[in-house]
C-alpha cells in the first residue's frame, strides 16, 4: 500500500518536474544515453573519444559560467586548463614528479587553479568588454612561452610535456585491463561532468546566480543597486577557473599525451567558446550537447567518414582539409543558429508545448502553466 503510493508520488513528481518540461526531458534522455553508451560494446578507442567529449563539456561549462551567465568575456580559458594539466602531471607523474594518486592530485590541482584564477582575475576584472577578452587571451600565450623556455626544461620538459601514463583508477576492476580501465575512466568523467553540471546549475539558480545575471544585463544598474560587482565578478572568475582546472586535470590523466604546451595553446582557448556556441550560450545542457556535437564532428565525421568517402586524397592534404571543413561547419552553425543547437531545439519544443491543448493535462500542470502565462503576459 505505502510502496505503491510512494511509487505513484514519485512518478507524478517525475512527470511534473521532468517529463512535462521538454528541456528537462531532453536532458534526462541525454543523461540516460550517456549512461548506457559504454555498455553497447564500443571499442576502447571510441570510449576514449567520448571521455574527451566529457572533459570538453566540463571545460565549456566552466567557460559558460563566466561568459554566458556573468558576461565577462574570456578568450584565455586555456590558462586554467593548462595550469590544471601541468599541476596534476607534476604531482602524479611517477617519472618526473611526485607520483601521487589521482584522488590527491585533482583536488590539489583545483586549489592551484582557483588560486591562479584569483591572481589573474584580480587585475583583469578592472577592464571590461573587448579589453577583457583580449587581455585574457594574452595569459595562456605568456604561460606557454614560459613553459617552453629552455632553462625551465627540468621542470616542465619543454615541447614534450609530462606524460602521466594511465593510472590504475579502480584497481579492483582490472580484469580485462584495457577495456575495463577505459570504462572506469568514462564513468569517472561522466560522474564528474554530472557533478559539475549540477553545481553550476545550482549556482546559476541561486541568489548568487541572480546577481550574476544582473551583472550580465547591466553592470552599472546592479552597481547602483548596491551590489559589489567586483566581488561577484571575481567569484564567477574563480568558480570558472576551478571547473576549468578540473577539466585540465582530467585531460592530463586520461589523454595519452599528458600535459604538453598545446594545453595552453590558442586552439585550446577557443575550443570552449566554439563548444558553448554550438550548444547554446548561457545554458548548462548547451555545453554538454555542444561538446558531443563538436566531438562527433571532429572524430566521426572528419577523421572517420571523410577518409572513407575520399580515399584518394593524400594524408597531409586531408589533415589540412579537415580543419578547413571543421571551421567552415562551425562558421555555418554560428551564423545559422546563433543561439546554439540545443537552445534552438528546446525553443522549438516549447513552441509546440504552448500550442498543445492545456485541458488534456493534469490539474497541477495546468495551474503551473496558467501562472506562467499570467506572469509572461504581465511583463
Amino acid at each position, binding site marked *: 500500500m505505502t510502496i505503491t503510493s510512494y511509487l505513484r508520488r514519485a512518478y507524478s513528481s517525475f512527470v511534473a518536474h521532468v517529463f512535462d518540461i521538454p528541456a528537462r526531458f531532453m536532458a534526462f534522455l541525454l543523461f540516460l544515453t550517456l549512461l548506457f553508451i559504454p555498455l553497447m560494446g564500443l571499442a576502447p578507442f571510441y570510449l576514449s573519444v567520448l571521455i574527451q567529449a566529457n572533459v570538453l563539456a566540463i571545460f565549456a561549462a566552466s567557460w559558460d559560467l563566466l561568459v554566458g551567465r556573468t558576461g565577462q568575456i574570456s578568450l584565455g580559458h586555456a590558462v586554467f586548463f593548462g595550469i590544471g594539466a601541468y599541476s596534476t602531471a607534476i604531482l602524479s607523474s611517477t617519472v618526473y614528479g611526485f607520483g601521487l594518486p589521482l584522488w590527491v592530485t585533482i583536488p590539489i590541482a583545483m586549489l592551484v587553479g582557483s588560486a591562479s584564477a584569483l591572481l589573474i582575475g584580480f587585475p583583469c576584472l578592472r577592464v571590461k568588454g573587448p579589453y577583457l*577578452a583580449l587581455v585574457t587571451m*594574452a595569459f595562456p600565450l605568456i604561460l606557454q612561452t614560459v613553459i617552453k623556455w629552455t632553462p625551465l626544461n627540468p621542470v616542465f620538459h619543454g615541447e614534450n610535456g609530462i606524460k602521466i601514463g594511465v593510472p590504475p583508477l579502480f584497481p579492483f576492476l582490472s580484469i580485462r585491463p584495457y577495456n575495463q580501465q577505459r570504462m572506469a575512466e568514462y564513468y569517472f568523467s561522466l560522474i564528474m561532468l554530472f557533478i559539475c553540471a549540477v553545481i553550476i546549475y545550482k549556482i546559476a539558480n541561486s541568489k548568487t546566480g541572480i546577481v550574476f545575471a544582473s551583472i550580465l544585463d547591466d553592470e552599472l544598474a546592479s552597481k547602483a543597486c548596491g551590489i559589489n560587482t567586483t566581488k561577484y565578478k571575481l567569484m564567477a572568475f574563480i568558480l570558472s577557473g576551478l571547473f576549468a582546472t578540473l577539466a585540465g586535470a582530467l585531460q592530463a590523466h586520461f589523454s595519452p599525451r599528458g600535459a604538453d604546451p598545446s594545453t595552453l595553446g590558442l586552439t585550446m582557448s577557443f575550443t570552449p567558446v566554439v563548444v558553448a556556441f554550438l550548444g547554446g550560450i548561457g545554458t548548462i545542457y548547451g555545453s554538454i550537447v555542444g561538446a558531443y556535437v563538436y566531438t562527433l564532428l571532429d572524430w566521426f565525421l572528419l577523421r572517420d567518414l571523410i577518409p572513407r568517402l575520399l580515399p584518394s586524397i593524400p594524408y597531409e592534404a586531408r589533415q589540412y582539409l579537415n580543419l*578547413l571543413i571543421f571551421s567552415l561547419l562551425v562558421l555555418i552553425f554560428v551564423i545559422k543558429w546563433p543561439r546554439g543547437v540545443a537552445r534552438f531545439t528546446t525553443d522549438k519544443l516549447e513552441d509546440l508545448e504552448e500550442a498543445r491543448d492545456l485541458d488534456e493535462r493534469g490539474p497541477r500542470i495546468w495551474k503551473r502553466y496558467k501562472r506562467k502565462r499570467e506572469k509572461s503576459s504581465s511583463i
Partner: protein
Amino acid sequence: MIEQIIVYGAISGGVYALLALGFTLIYGVSGVVNLAHGSFYMLAAYMFFVFGSSGLFGAETMLTSVLAVILAVVVVGVVGLIVYRLTIHPVLGDEVAVMVVTVCLALIFQQLMLLGFGADFPRVSWPEGSFLLKTTSIFGVTVEYSRILAFIVSIVLFAMLLMFITKTKIGKAMRAVSQNREVAMLMGINTDRLYMLTMVLSAMLAAIAGIFITTSIEKSTGAWLWFKPLALSFSIVILGGLGSIKGSLLGGFIIAFAAKTVETILPEGGAIVGVAPLAVMVAVLLLRPKGLFGKRVEMED
C-alpha cells in the same frame, strides 16, 4: 646598442602602427573585434608572393613588384569585403559571436594557404639587385633601404588616413558612427555601407603593413604567421585604447621599442621576444584599464 634600439624600433614602430590602425578603425566604427586581422596580413604576403616573386608577370623587376603590391592590396580588400558581407554582417552586435566567426575565418584562411602552398615558408622579398636591398647607415647603424621605405610609406599613409578621417565627409561620418550609432543613422548616414567601407579600408591597411613587414623585416611568410601580427595589433591597440587613432600610433612605437629592447638584451631568448608586447600590454592595462587614449567605452566609473 641604444642607437640600434632607437633606429630599428622607430622603423618597425611605424609599420606596427599602420597594422594596428586597421584593427582599431573597424572596432571604433562598427564594434567588430576582428580576430582575422592577422589573416589579411598573411594573405597579402602570399598574394605578393604570387604576383611578384613567383614570376607571374615575367622576370621580377621593380615594376612588377610595385604592380604586385597594388594587386595584393586590392585583392585583400575585395576578400575583406566579401568575407564581411557573408559572415560578420549576420552576427553583428553579438561580441562573442563575432569573435568566434572571425577566428573561424582566420583558421579557414590558414588552411586554404596550407592547401594551396604547402607547409613551407616561401621567401618574400624585393627583386634581386634593386636599390632597396642595399644598405645605408643612420647614426652609425646599418639599415636597408627597404626598411626606410617601409617607415616612410607607413608614416605617409598614416598622415593621409588622419586627413581622410578628419577632413572628408566619409571620415566625418565614420567618426559620427563611432560616437553614436543611432544618432548618426538619424542624420542620414548609411551605416551598413560605412561598415563595409571601413572593413575594406582596414583589410587594405593590414595588407600594406603585411607586405612591408614581410618584405623588409621578416623576409618570409607562412600559413601560421597570422597570429603574431594579430597579437601585435591587439596589444598595440589595447595599449593605446580601442578605437583611438592617436593611441595606435603611440602604442605602435612603444611596443616596437619594447620588443627591440628585449631582443637586444636577451639575444638567445627567441621565444620570449614574442611575448614582450603582450607583457607590456598587461602591465599598462593594470595601470590604466582603458589604455592610454581609451574611447568608446561605457559610461562607467
